[in-house]
């Protein structure tokens, strides 16, 4: 390698320092391994989706009652996910929940309500028990980040992973660059973990401000894109997720309002949710979003959330905790001159994310086995970029499982890894750096806006064969313009990479949506030309691999784990 490269040799390279990445680092560090984390943020304590705080954590505690056992929750998983779920991975994840919950408590996270010194557990989103712990998680990520730093995990901040390195379906490292200093890293590793979260900035929202998004707008499907390009299998990419937000500000927070007892009303003041589900406001996120979308399409908008029906004590609690999930939420209502205690809040449908289609345990992204390992040997994934996802708790538990899986993989593997080919590394760097200072071509902002408009119009809600084909044509032609994208500086180069990753995820989503000829989980995959759920033919996962001419699809029956679709596990079986 030339002198201007930073070369690192490590045991476990983790791309993405959010909850999943940090929780994976912890067991590896406990096992005495070297860990390097690449993270686009600048401080581990506050990066990732919950870097600003979190107000709820889904867990089974095994506290005594039957509903609080893994077995009880597991029984409901097929119903919760409409049957599209990897039960092998989900079962292990749910069984590990109590252990990981206690482990996070040991880091100093206080999940208890200071008023009662007990857990304040709520029932949310159609789950069959009060599994959501409502708590002040302002310092949640800070305490997890501290744990990694204390154990001497090495962290490369403001650093973006651009490519993972594989040979013969085995990972051996990655290439990354620091977008503040311009340093390029060639990192050789025995295992690699991709944990960069979900895909955002992929469709339009009410405000039209691209980075005003419910989920972290700096999560741009980097893991899914890097994994796919290297040959890892993706699944469930046809499903999208949306939520309901205060109109104008795509933010979290309505979940808290609804679980505390607020009502949805349409323009006529009708509490309509019971028309759609007997669970009313207590239904799954996907069902709630669906009902609101339908009311808007029926011409019953604007839709409102009314908190005035809540008891005073709940309203007080709500106001006290409004800033926990999003610190600026009180400022938003203040600047709007809006009193949520007395005035109904106008609601919008948010932009889309590719994450977990509004249901727990059915993630969209890199297919993983029960060790969090993808179809590429030594490549792991967890969090919102993996196929079993469940909010912050899902990221924590699967992250930890993947960390333990990586430890096992590293201990079983001999050290015969390829050296990083300097010419290949140079080509990657030269290709990237050519974007900086270009005179001709689109800016990443213009490019991304075209992706967003295409997805909003034809790949989001109300999908049809014709619309999806039109979208694919546009998205594929956009791909040809990628080498010409302009970046003003290193920061812009990071955004250019993000924009390309967003476009690739959009293309994969459109391709997978085209092939699923049914509607499932309401708005998460709504085909106008196939409006019914077809359990006879479509209790199947759609798996996506990189083919010669773009995404190649295959299906796998949902009674089987996704890892049955991995060639590495098949060949192992044959060898045994």
């Amino acid at each position, binding site marked *: 390698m030339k002198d201007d490269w930073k070369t690192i040799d490590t045991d476990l390279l983790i791309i993405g320092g959010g909850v999943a990445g940090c929780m994976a680092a912890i067991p590896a560090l406990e096992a005495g391994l070297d860990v390097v984390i690449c993270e686009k943020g600048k401080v581990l304590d506050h990066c990732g989706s919950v870097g600003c705080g979190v107000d709820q954590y889904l867990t089974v505690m095994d506290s005594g009652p039957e509903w609080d056992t893994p077995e009880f929750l597991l029984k409901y998983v097929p119903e919760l996910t409409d049957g599209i779920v990897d039960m092998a991975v989900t079962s292990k994840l749910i069984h590990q929940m109590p252990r990981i919950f206690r482990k996070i408590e040991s880091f100093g996270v206080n999940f208890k309500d200071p008023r009662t010194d007990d857990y304040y557990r709520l029932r949310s989103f159609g789950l069959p028990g009060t599994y959501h712990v409502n708590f002040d998680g302002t310092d949640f990520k800070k305490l997890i980040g501290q744990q990694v730093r204390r154990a001497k995990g090495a962290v490369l901040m403001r650093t973006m992973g651009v490519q993972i390195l594989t040979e013969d379906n085995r990972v051996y490292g990655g290439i990354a660059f620091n977008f503040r200093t311009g340093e390029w890293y060639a990192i050789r590793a025995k295992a690699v973990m991709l944990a960069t979260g979900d895909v955002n900035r992929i469709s339009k929202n009410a405000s039209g401000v691209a980075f005003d998004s419910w989920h972290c707008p700096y999560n741009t499907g980097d893991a899914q894109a890097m994994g796919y390009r290297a040959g890892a299998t993706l699944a469930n990419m046809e499903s999208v997720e949306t939520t309901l937000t205060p109109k104008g500000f795509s933010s979290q927070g309505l979940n808290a309002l609804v679980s505390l007892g607020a009502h949805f009303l349409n323009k006529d003041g009708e509490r309509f949710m019971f028309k759609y589900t007997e669970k009313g406001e207590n239904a799954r996120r996907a069902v709630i979003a669906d009902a609101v979308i339908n009311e*808007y399409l029926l011409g019953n908008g604007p839709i409102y959330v009314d908190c005035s029906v809540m008891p005073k004590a709940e309203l007080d609690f709500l106001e006290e905790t409004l800033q926990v999930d999003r610190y600026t939420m009180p400022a938003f209502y203040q600047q709007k001159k809006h009193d949520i205690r007395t005035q109904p809040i106008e609601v919008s449908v948010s932009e889309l994310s590719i994450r977990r289609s509004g249901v727990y345990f059915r993630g969209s992204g890199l297919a993983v086995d029960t060790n969090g390992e993808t179809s590429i040997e030594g490549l792991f994934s967890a969090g919102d970029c993996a196929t079993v996802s469940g909010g912050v708790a899902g990221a924590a538990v699967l992250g930890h499982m993947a960390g333990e899986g990586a430890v096992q993989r590293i201990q079983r593997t001999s050290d015969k890894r390829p050296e990083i080919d300097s010419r290949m590394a140079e080509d990657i760097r030269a290709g990237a750096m050519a974007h900086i200072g270009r005179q001709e071509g689109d800016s990443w902002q213009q490019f991304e806006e075209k992706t967003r408009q295409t997805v909003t119009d034809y790949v989001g*809600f109300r999908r049809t064969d014709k619309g999806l084909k039109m979208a694919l044509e546009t998205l594929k032609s956009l791909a040809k313009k990628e080498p010409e994208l302009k970046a003003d500086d290193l920061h812009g180069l990071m955004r250019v990479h993000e924009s390309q990753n967003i476009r690739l995820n959009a293309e994969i989503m459109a391709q997978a949506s085209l092939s699923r000829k049914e509607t499932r989980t309401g708005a998460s995959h709504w085909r106008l030309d196939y409006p019914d759920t077809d359990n006879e033919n479509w209790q199947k996962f759609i798996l996506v691999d990189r083919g010669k001419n773009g995404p190649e699809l295959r299906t796998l029956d949902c009674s089987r784990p996704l890892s049955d679709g991995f060639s590495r596990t098949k060949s192992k079986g044959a060898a045994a």
Partner: protein
Amino acid sequence: MSDSKQKVHNPIQINTETCIRCDFCDWICPGDLIYHEDGNKEHLPVVAYPDECWFCGLCQKICPVDAITIIFPEQMINNKTDVTTLLGKVVE
């Protein structure tokens, strides 16, 4: 305005009188928007990419002297978008 390109709204308002030119806002911004040279007490932090703000408020929260205020743009505070335009075009 003759220029069709609108001026970018800067949501991260830094009070130049009270800012003590520490590095915290640069340090904490998850989007790499705020730039301040480490330890430089002469220069104010610069919001280099205001249109990439998530409105998370971490910079405001961490500021030791409360010199930062997040100001939402008009299209967020007083939003007029027809929500049905976000629900796709029907092509059959």
